[in-house]
């Protein structure tokens, strides 16, 4: 009987130990690290605009060059840039108004920062919604909703078409881990 109890105890210990790797992944050593996320909202226009030039900051020049190599949009324009900060394993949200009076809401439910260098940041349930208020209803102009892995030092672009007809919306996400 004692032997059986020992076996059962060992099995129970084994079963509880199976949870440990998951816990380690969710709580890496740098659990106190913060994540500073800079998000650029960039529009890609299918039709030529009045100003033929792209209206994006110099920081995004290399990114824009790559976008031009992949997509055939006529011009690009920075709509807004937001910065939000959150803790490792935590979420963050920022909302506001865009120059064209539409409303944006950007958030992620949880950011998990890996301990490796450069850090890999896993953003769970990342979501950007741009809405426009009409007299009696709220219209969703653009919606980006996904899980995303971004690496520190890289600019990660998330693009989506069919925004305002044939235009596109690009999120350029730049993560920075603050230890």
């Amino acid at each position, binding site marked *: 009987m004692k032997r059986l109890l020992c076996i*059962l105890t060992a*099995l129970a210990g084994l079963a509880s130990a199976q949870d440990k790797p998951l816990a380690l992944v969710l709580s890496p050593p740098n659990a106190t690290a913060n994540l500073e996320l800079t998000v650029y909202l960039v529009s890609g226009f299918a039709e030529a605009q009045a100003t033929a030039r792209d209206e994006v900051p110099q920081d995004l020049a290399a990114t824009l060059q790559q976008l031009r190599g992949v997509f055939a949009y006529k011009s690009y324009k920075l709509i807004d840039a937001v910065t939000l900060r959150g803790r490792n394993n935590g979420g963050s949200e920022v909302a506001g108004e865009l120059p064209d009076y539409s409303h944006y809401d950007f958030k992620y439910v949880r950011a998990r920062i890996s301990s490796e260098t450069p850090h890999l940041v896993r953003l769970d349930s990342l*979501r950007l919604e741009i809405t426009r208020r009409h007299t009696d209803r709220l219209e969703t102009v653009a919606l980006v909703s996904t899980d995303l892995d971004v690496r520190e030092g*890289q*600019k990660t672009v*998330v693009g989506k078409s069919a925004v305002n007809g044939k235009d596109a919306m690009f999120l350029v996400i730049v993560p920075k881990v603050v230890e």
Partner: protein
Amino acid sequence: MTCPVCKAIEGRGECAECRALAGELRANAEALSALRHEELPPLVVSVSRRAPVYSWVAAAAAAVLLAMALPSLRQVAIAPKHGPQSGRAGKSEPLKIKMLTPDPDVVIYWLIDSKEGE
């Protein structure tokens, strides 16, 4: 076994001990023959007092197996969480295409709604 007196097979010798043993064996055989037509009493099933212990052990083993199976069940439960949490019922997760660029510092993902891909 041999008889210590006459050295013959026990019960088959001519000595008094062999004869006595042969007589006992014969009497036993006759008694058993007489029981051949006796009706047996109905079988009484007795419940062992150790049975509850075994049931507790079985319950504990089942609990351990359940605990071992729980992580995989949890993973199955977590899996749908990766979908968009827009609150719009029936919307499926968009197709996400990763595009490699010559610049290693620029990674592009292109999202395609299922509606667009049709």
